[in-house]
């Protein structure tokens, strides 16, 4: 039985908040790292970013139209743009255009609209797309390039870049460059230990600033952190997920590094490389797909951190943020079912509180 909400009922005042405002703040927080990524990887990155975001918007509009839902309010809420945006940031910056198109379609249609649209999806749409792409097109999703800043010598110009993004991709072979995590993984599998594998690799300061090979928006830990702090300051996300997730990875990395320094890189490498930072502040914190209680969020974030470390260290994949987040997304309903705040006036088990000391003050 559905009800139509009666028009009466308060409150008759409201905080100045709305979904689009919220989304705008997230975009603002993403702006520094995005701008940097686009600059660092030049025109091809700009093309891919544009294509991915545009496809997300079109896919959203079409889905809404097919489902006969109002298009304008949902398009204007900004969630589709954000999904496309986040997806683009996790892609190799010189990937061909169709990777962005297919990715955005997967994210919006399969990841979001099939579940019923805004707020209904179980999994983080960008990560659904990311994992699907990785499994379907492993080559395109693991071909990274070294930084080719806009207008720098040796960087492709506008026309050449059109070729990179919209032409045939084969010509990347010459300039491809592995990410740090990818490199470590390959070296270890070839029996080379870290003392040698880490030679000639980006230093920690480089990882911090982000002047390395990697996904479009994942290289600069510092700029991601800046955006994350903005979200924290605006109380759009709580500290729990990023802090617990990063701490879990750091603790595990430290322990393993102490046990076997030649096989396991230390915490700093883990924290500053790959998708972890972006994941901790922008992906795992996705409101729709993370738990709603403080304790639930802690549990979820620790789970994410644990899975990321396990996948990075012992699976066939060098990076595990997307998998880890999806797995924990699947557990979110369960976490929310079992972990609830204590209700006022009740014990944790839901019984009314009883004060033992002074009995009740009821006179018999």
């Amino acid at each position, binding site marked *: 039985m559905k*009800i139509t909400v009666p028009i009466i009922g308060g409150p008759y005042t*409201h905080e100045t908040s*709305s979904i689009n405002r919220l989304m705008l703040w997230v975009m603002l927080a993403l702006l520094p790292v995005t701008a940097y990524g686009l600059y660092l990887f030049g025109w091809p990155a700009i093309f891919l970013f544009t294509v991915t975001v545009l496809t997300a918007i079109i896919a959203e509009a079409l889905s809404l139209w097919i489902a006969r839902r109002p298009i304008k309010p949902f398009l204007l809420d900004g969630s589709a743009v954000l999904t496309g945006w986040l997806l683009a940031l996790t892609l190799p910056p010189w990937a061909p255009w169709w990777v962005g198109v297919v990715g955005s379609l997967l994210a919006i249609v399969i990841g979001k609209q099939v579940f019923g649209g805004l707020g*209904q999806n179980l999994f983080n749409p960008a990560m659904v797309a990311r994992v699907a792409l990785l499994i379907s097109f492993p080559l395109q999703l693991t071909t990274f390039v070294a930084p080719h800043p806009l207008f720098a010598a040796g960087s492709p110009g506008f026309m050449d870049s059109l070729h990179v993004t919209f032409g045939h991709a084969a010509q990347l072979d010459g300039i491809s460059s592995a990410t740090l995590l990818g490199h470590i993984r390959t070296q270890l599998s070839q029996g080379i230990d870290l003392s040698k594998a880490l030679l000639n690799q980006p230093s920690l300061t480089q990882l911090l600033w982000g002047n390395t090979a990697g996904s479009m928006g994942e290289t600069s830990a510092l700029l991601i952190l800046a955006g994350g702090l903005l979200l924290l300051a605006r109380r759009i996300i*709580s500290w729990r997920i990023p802090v617990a997730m990063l701490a879990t990875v750091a603790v595990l990395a430290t322990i393993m590094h102490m046990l076997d320094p030649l096989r396991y890189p230390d915490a700093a490498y883990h924290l500053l490389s790959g998708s972890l930072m972006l994941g901790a502040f922008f992906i795992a914190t996705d409101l729709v797909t993370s738990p709603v*209680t403080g304790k639930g969020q802690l549990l979820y974030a620790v789970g994410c951190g644990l899975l990321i470390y396990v996948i990075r260290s012992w699976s066939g994949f060098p990076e595990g943020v997307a998998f880890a987040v999806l797995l924990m997304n699947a557990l979110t309903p369960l976490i929310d079912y079992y972990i609830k705040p204590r209700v006022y006036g009740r014990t944790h088990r839901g019984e009314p509180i009883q004060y033992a000391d002074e009995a009740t003050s009821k006179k018999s």
Partner: protein
Amino acid sequence: MKLFKIRGGVHPDDRKKLSANKAIEPMPMPKLLRIPLQQHIGAPAEPVVRKGDKVLKGQLLADSKSVISAAVHAPTSGQIMAIGNYMAPHPSGLPIRTITLKPDHDDRWIELPAEVDPFTLTLDEIVKRVADAGIVGMGGATFPSAVKLGLRKRYELHTLVLNGAECEPYLTCDDRLMREQADDILDGIRIMMHALQVEQALIAIENNKPEALAAMREASSGFNKIKVINVPTRYPMGSEKHLVQTLTGKETPARALTADIGIVVHNVATAHAVHDAVRFGRPLISRVVTVSGGAIQQPRNLHVLIGTPVQDLLDYCGGFLEQPSHILSGGPMMGHPIPDTKVPVIKGFNGVIALTAKETAIRPPMPCIRCANCVTACPCGLVPLEMAARARNGDLQGAVDLGLMDCIACGSCAYVCPAHVPLVQYFNYAKGELTLRQRAEHKQAETKRLAEQRAVRIEHQKKAKREAMMRRRQEAARKKAAAQTTETEV
């Protein structure tokens, strides 16, 4: 004094500046007063006057006939024009029984008893005086105060808390009353302490009212059992159970009263009314009302006779600056829209607030995005988004299992919801529906019980009939046999 933290809560813009510096002014006498017979929680009062009667100010118009009810008195002298149905000052606007009084402008008091020293009265006498004066909780809850003052009989009480938090935005009537009539309020407090036989009284005032705080401090200096406490400004500080938690650190057990932990909470305006009633025998016939909101020309604090039409208040404040989007009784967080400006002011009206569309900031609802703002804001530890989802799908039991009945309808959750989900509306709907269902179930059970009783009764009658028949037959048989014997004997 050490204060304790409460969970959740919100900080709405308090907008009290609009009217906080306006001293309480009396309203001119209205042309007609419409006095509803139910201005309180409980049963309506029963009229004791008739159409055409001339009444004096303070004369009893309708008496409370049941345990939880409150008497109603004439706010001025005049003639009863009608006793009938009139639009209720309630969102539904359904008609309720109302006495219409035409003031004669003499404003002549009924003969009042001589002033008494309340501390020479017995406790029951005090409670009776409060009941006779028709006093109800004036913070908006409108629970009959005499019932609350009688709690001493059933609970071990130790503390009286005076709620001067006034945590709703815009409202300043309690603030003004505390500033201007602190001594009278204090007298009321002492009378209530006496009636409740408690050891101490705590007057809680939010720290956005420094003048009221100072006034009450000054009035209470010299009474070491009465403390004035500066509580943080945070909505819903004025919620009885949360105020008690702030002051004592103790949560009131679910489904119980604060009296269960030895505390009774009264509003400061109620204390003022108690002073009037017990010391001077004056019934509750007027109150202070804040008229405010962005749409009001001149926001004010008015001393208003019960029964005055809201329109008169609006007119007195210069009317509207712009067409309001909502006119509320009470504050914007928990107040209700009034159906029409012709409805009268009643005992629980602390404000008439006319809000502009900009102030209400109502937007079309979007789907919940699970942002958890509502969870963080809920002072009761509930998960509003899930309760609302259940209620929307008609799963009332599910909503109850999640704590619907522990929700105090404070609106903090809806206030912070970025999707503008009308959470409180869902809760109100679900609570209303549950009451209806329970009533229906009760009725059904009652019908079944009666039917069963009837069946049993019929069964009994049948059995009795059968037995009577048997007896008669046996009797007849015996007689026959006896007759036969006699015959044979013959």
